[in-house]
């Protein structure tokens, strides 16, 4: 296994909710990343943002890791959930909130 995959797996193991994004949760540098940050913040689940713009190896590595060509990418308990479109659809239908709850992750939103 390559080093970058090991780094990604360590990150996903250490944090139940990880968003690979452009920019930081406080200062997203892409509209799609910003939208996912907004949704996660609204739902109230704590998450770790990883800024791929600061790390070329991760930026390319995360695309290969999960066979997904674009950023942002959301992972929950190590599993790839989706990019901006999928997270948005799951939020709008309530599936995202239900999935987080089912996995025992804290949210502030009442189901």
């Amino acid at each position, binding site marked *: 296994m390559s080093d970058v995959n090991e780094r990604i797996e360590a990150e996903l193991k250490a944090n139940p909710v990880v968003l690979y994004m452009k920019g930081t949760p406080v200062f997203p*540098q892409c509209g799609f990343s910003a939208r996912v940050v907004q949704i996660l913040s609204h739902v109230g689940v704590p998450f770790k943002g990883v800024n791929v*713009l600061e790390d070329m190896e991760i930026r390319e590595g995360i695309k290969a890791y999960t*066979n*997904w*060509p*674009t950023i942002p990418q959301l992972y929950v308990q190590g599993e790839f959930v*989706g*990019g*901006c479109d*999928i997270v948005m659809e799951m939020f709008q239908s309530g599936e995202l909130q239900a999935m987080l709850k089912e996995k025992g992750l804290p949210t502030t939103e009442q189901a």
Partner: protein
Amino acid sequence: MSDRATRIRTALDAQFQPLRLEVVDDSHMHAGHAGARPEGETHYSVLLVSPSFSGMSRVNRSRAVHAALAAEFANGLHALALTLRAPEELG
């Protein structure tokens, strides 16, 4: 319509026998930011309704579209907003 939009449309038409297919070039909305190129043709939205998506998860639907457009991703396509539906999901 831009050349890439035409190629995206052709590739998706061939792969998914869509009941509905819309390809929109959003590149002008992203001009000047990372991933944008001066010549444009980097950011697209696609709405695709196809029987192929019946019984497929969201992630797998997107993966099927990404695979059909692999040549475009290898060639400067930077962002693709996807709305993918099976016919029975239309309200």
